[in-house]
């Protein structure tokens, strides 16, 4: 292992937007050079705000940010030369062609002449836009536009690439293609990638390390396996027919916690979850206990730990619910972790 300095290091970032919206509340992140790091969190968690600060677009109220060895607050110009940015919203000029967008981007970084044309064509080919490059961007599909966004971010061969929700709004096919592309980028010599996502699957698949962000700060960090490994045992999820009131809730939790090997019993609206050393073996006990409490059960699932469980553990709520209703006290009954995809 070499001990090169981290490509990104941010500490204690605070940011409040007008109207007392606390976007960041002690956010910190360290990304080792040459790695892919994922910021995972629901909508409104503060991912984009973090990216905006690290990419010199916004200034924090307090805290420090060093990117590619430069202080982002004191020398934003130096940071800008070293980074590539793919923002959450596509910033491509719709009236210009894909190629023109790339050429202008290169020129702004001082790339000129033959190198400029070569680099643009190379990226168009790499992102499967060679033909489309001659057309105006407004004729592009969502997937093509996103690939162009990434190409724009790479035009000047940056050291650090920021990808803010690179696949949000894409259809599954385009998303898979983008994942492959990002996977290939990760193999590029020396490129550091900081990506944000609100898809658990995406973070799991692409990032070597993940920080789970909730309400403006990191609540857990590690490799996907480390994060899952901290949750010992299987996850047992029970969907109740109706949400019990507070008193019943306490009774249920106490009853379940009595079994050996069952831990971390959490009740979140109609969802009851627990950890069990041996999930399948615990199910009959759990069901019996619930029946004795007079609670009707809609379904039971047993699963190996997932990032969703990690999220529940550290943020105290389910990912999908936090995403659908960041401030709601009572979680909405959203089944899968794909809610809030449309943006």
């Amino acid at each position: 292992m070499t001990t090169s300095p981290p490509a990104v290091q941010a500490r204690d970032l605070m940011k409040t937007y007008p109207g007392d919206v606390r976007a960041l509340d002690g956010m910190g992140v360290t990304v080792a050079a040459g790695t892919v790091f994922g910021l995972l969190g629901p909508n409104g968690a503060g991912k984009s705000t973090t990216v905006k600060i690290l990419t010199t677009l916004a200034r924090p109220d307090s805290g420090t940010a060093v990117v590619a060895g430069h202080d982002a607050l004191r020398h934003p110009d130096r940071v800008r030369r070293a980074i590539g940015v793919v923002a959450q919203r596509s910033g491509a000029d719709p009236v210009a062609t894909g190629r023109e967008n790339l050429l202008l981007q290169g020129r702004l970084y001082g790339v000129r002449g033959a190198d400029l044309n070569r680099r643009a064509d190379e990226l168009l080919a790499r992102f499967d836009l060679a033909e489309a490059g001659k057309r105006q961007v407004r004729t592009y599909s969502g997937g093509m536009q996103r690939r162009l966004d990434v190409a724009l971010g790479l035009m000047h061969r940056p050291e650090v690439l920021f990808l803010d929700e690179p696949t949000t709004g894409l259809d599954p096919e385009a998303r898979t293609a983008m994942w492959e592309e990002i996977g290939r980028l990760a193999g590029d010599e020396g490129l550091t990638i900081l990506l944000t996502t609100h898809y658990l699957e995406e973070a799991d698949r692409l990032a070597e390390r993940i920080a789970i962000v909730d309400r403006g700060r990191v609540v857990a960090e590690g490799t996907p396996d480390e994060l899952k490994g901290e949750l010992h045992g299987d996850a047992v999820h029970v969907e109740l027919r109706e949400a019990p009131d507070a008193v019943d809730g306490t009774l249920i939790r106490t009853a379940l916690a009595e079994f050996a090997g069952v831990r971390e019993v959490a009740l979140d609206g109609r969802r009851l979850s627990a950890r069990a050393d041996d999930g399948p073996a615990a199910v009959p006990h759990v069901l019996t206990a619930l029946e004795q409490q007079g609670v009707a059960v809609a379904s039971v699932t047993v699963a190996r730990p997932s990032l969703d469980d990690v999220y529940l553990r550290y943020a105290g709520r389910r990912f999908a619910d936090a995403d659908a209703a960041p401030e709601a006290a009572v979680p909405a009954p959203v089944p899968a972790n794909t809610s809030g995809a449309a943006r």
Partner: protein
Amino acid sequence: MSTTINQTWFMTQRQLTAILRQPAYLVITLIQPVIWLFLFGSLFRRVVELPGFGAGSYLDYLVPGVVVMSAVSSNMWAGMGTLEEIERGTLNRFLTTPVSRAALMNANVVQQGISTGIQSVVIVLLGKIGGADYPGGVAGLLILVLASIVLGTVFGAFSNALGMLVRQRESIIGINTFLLLPLTFLSSAFMAPGLMPSWMRHVADFNPVNWALVAGRSAMSADPDWGDVLSRGGALLALAAAAVWLSTRTFRSYQKSV
């Protein structure tokens, strides 16, 4: 420094290309003056016969009026483009590149200046085709075009500031619709000042649209009053500088709100 100039040119080019690729926009900005020339020209043809109007043909009188009114009406919408760039994220993309912030602002001014210049020249030529007479010659016409460019800069910069500040299309549409006609009719665009009610004439003295008209018309006459040209031209330049300064300030406040 040379970097800023280069970058200003790249960004200006981008904007000009975008305009050329929106034929509807081009057609409207060129057809509209033609319609004005034709409509106002026909409607008011005989006002020159009023004692004291002091122009040979109404078309001669009308051309600078339409040049200036068109400069105002096309630049007023600049804020819409800025707003779209903000919403689309294009502006933010540029702000994360090393492009000089001055180049971003300058490009708006330069592009608007070039567009207004071309539009003004086209109207002058259309007038010529229609039989207008320009006794002040090329020098006079050049000053008219310059005055309309500077006036366009004023309105373009205000419009950009408004777009960045309120971030609402409705506000820009509302203010523009509200302002265009009063600004035009409270000036000597279509009616000789000597025939305007005196209160209107006094209001017109404070109307920058009228400054451009006075400067342009005077320079275009057979016997220009250079004092008028310089005073009104100078006032316009000062106002343009103030408007650009204001839009630079609002640009900073936009950056703080990102």
